[in-house]
């Protein structure tokens, strides 16, 4: 790279910026408790359970995320783990983007750093609780930097790349994103670094093994409900339409997790300005990165944008419906906006460099003021990411009776059904915020929950044959005493109703304000089943061993990063 790399004061500035940004976004988390929001659930101690490692009858959407949380929970309590994860996302996003941008001025680094951590994408995915995907978002600048280092034959680049890819591969989407990024940046690379590039590709592919093996052993099949394509397609946030929303790094499908500021009249104008700056900055990026890297990064980001916008393009929705219904695993593509991550990084890097180029034409102190303005622009355009997304990230405590029920179930373990049938719940003690049923991670036994998603008036069916059978049984109002379930938990005032007939023949063990626990006397207690078996254990061990080797290799170097 022809630009100067960040010196010590420069790096310190990036860490200060990271601390300030993390504090601004996550300030409400100084209060005790857990932020329970949409897909984000942390519990005091998540159990080590096979169906969290690899769901036997569902698609592995949180593999190996749940396994990693369960393992880390052995040493770190859930409330602390959640805070570490959320702070790490913002910290690594800020520092990663700031160090990746080939800037000649320190202020440009801050533009990229703050710009990458204060995006509509991060805000919307954070509000949807997808912290695992955001880890991939935060890891991407580090991954790109390591891949560039590998191309240039820098020592230590391979272990750095493995560590960054491991952080990204905590979810299937992040793992595929890492694999695609590494492939695009390294494939076709000849010369002395060829073997290292091959090793990098193999390592990142191996990091994807846990979810691939889990997908292979599940009974859910790999196909998804094509109705999800319309439900999860990118959405317009203002008069600009869905493509402009995506161009501004927003456009998530859920209007309830979109910051209110995204609806402002000026947002498409700011987006247009950013695109102009990015167009100014791309030639600078091309000149300052090693030959060919910026072009490959550009191709990757255009691909990411097309993937994100696919369902909104003419004929795209129909093609995607066919893919999702017929091709196993294609369901990953139906929520397309999440694929936008490489585009976001490329946009931020180019816009920062475009800002530097434009500022170079101004006299002092105008140039500096212009860059300071660009540092603050993301905050001005998206002020409601501050203070826990305008107070929407609120920690709460689980009611005491959740612990009572967990202890009762632990004494006589067995499959447990969470009623009423609803994958997502809204509790008064959680300020009515929608959250995926926390019982599945709170109880030390296998918990069956609904897997159908309701988006507006549309129902997107799940994949589990077992849940489909239970749903039919409940619709027919047949008693659950005849099922293979040891326990049934009814969660009051969380939405939906339970027909009294289905509880006939069950014994009440606990009856409280929030929960009622029923025991099924017809089913004996049973230990946890080991459905997934050795292939899954081996894949997890392989990924963990590779990560540990990479970390040890980095620790033996004088400067890890």
């Amino acid at each position: 790279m022809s630009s100067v790399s960040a010196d010590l004061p420069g790096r310190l500035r990036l860490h200060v910026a990271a601390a300030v940004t993390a504090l601004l976004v996550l300030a409400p988390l100084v209060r005790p408790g857990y932020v329970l929001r949409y897909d984000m659930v942390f519990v005091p101690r998540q159990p080590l359970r096979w169906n969290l490692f690899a769901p036997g009858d569902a698609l592995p959407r949180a593999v190996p995320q749940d396994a990693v949380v369960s393992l880390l929970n052995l040493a770190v309590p859930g409330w602390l783990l959640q805070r570490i994860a959320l702070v790490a996302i913002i910290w690594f996003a800020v520092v990663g983007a700031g160090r990746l941008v080939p800037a000649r001025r320190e202020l440009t680094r801050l533009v990229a750093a703050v710009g990458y951590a204060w995006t509509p994408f991060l805000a919307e995915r954070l509000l949807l609780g997808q912290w695992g995907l955001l880890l991939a978002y935060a890891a991407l600048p580090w991954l790109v930097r390591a891949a560039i280092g590998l191309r240039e034959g820098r020592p230590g680049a391979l272990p750095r790349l493995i560590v960054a890819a491991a952080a990204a591969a905590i979810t299937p989407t992040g793992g595929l994103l890492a694999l695609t990024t590494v492939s695009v940046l390294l494939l076709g690379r000849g010369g002395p670094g060829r073997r290292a590039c091959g090793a990098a590709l193999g390592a990142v592919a191996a990091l994807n093994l846990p979810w691939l093996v889990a997908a292979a052993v599940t009974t859910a099949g790999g196909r998804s409900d094509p109705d999800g394509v319309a439900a999860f397609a990118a959405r317009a946030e203002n008069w600009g339409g869905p493509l402009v929303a995506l161009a501004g790094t927003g456009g998530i499908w859920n209007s309830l997790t979109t910051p209110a500021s995204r609806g402002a009249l000026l947002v498409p104008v700011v987006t247009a300005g950013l695109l102009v700056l990015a167009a100014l900055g791309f030639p600078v990026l091309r000149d300052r990165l090693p030959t060919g890297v910026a072009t490959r990064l550009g191709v990757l980001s255009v691909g990411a944008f097309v993937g994100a916008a696919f369902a909104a393009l003419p004929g795209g929705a129909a093609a995607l419906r066919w893919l999702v219904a017929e091709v196993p695993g294609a369901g990953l593509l139906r929520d397309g906006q999440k694929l936008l991550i490489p585009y976001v990084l490329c946009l931020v890097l180019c816009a920062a460099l475009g800002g530097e180029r434009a500022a170079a034409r101004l006299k002092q102190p105008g140039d500096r003021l212009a860059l300071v303005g660009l540092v603050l622009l993301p905050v001005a355009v998206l002020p409601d990411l501050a203070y826990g997304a305008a107070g929407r990230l609120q920690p709460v405590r689980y009611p005491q009776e959740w612990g009572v029920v967990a202890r009762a179930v632990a004494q006589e373990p067995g499959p447990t059904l969470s009623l009423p049938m609803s994958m997502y719940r809204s509790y008064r003690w959680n300020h009515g915020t929608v959250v995926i049923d926390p019982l599945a991670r709170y109880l030390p036994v296998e918990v069956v929950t609904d897997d159908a998603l309701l988006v507006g008036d549309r129902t997107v069916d799940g994949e589990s044959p077992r849940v489909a059978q239970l749903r039919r049984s409940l619709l027919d109002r047949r008693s659950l005493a005849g099922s293979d379930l040891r326990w049934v938990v009814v969660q009051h005032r969380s939405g939906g109703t339970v027909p009294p007939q289905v509880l006939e023949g069950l014994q009440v063990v606990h009856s409280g304000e929030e929960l009622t626990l029923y025991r099924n006397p017809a089913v004996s207690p049973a230990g946890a089943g080991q459905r997934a078996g050795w292939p899954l254990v081996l894949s997890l061990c392989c990924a963990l061993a590779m990560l540990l080797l990479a970390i040890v290799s980095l620790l033996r170097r004088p400067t890890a990063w």
Partner: protein
Amino acid sequence: MPKPLTLMLAAVVGAVLAVVALGAMTQQLVVSSGTAASTSDDNGDPQHYGVR
């Protein structure tokens, strides 16, 4: 003349204060209007994953 680093830190601290004030104001507006975001939106039908 203050050093650039001092200026930078002053700018960051100023921005922090501005954003905290802005965030608090936004939250107040949102909660009082009961329309845009925050808890009012989250209190939708709990069975819904979301609304387009």
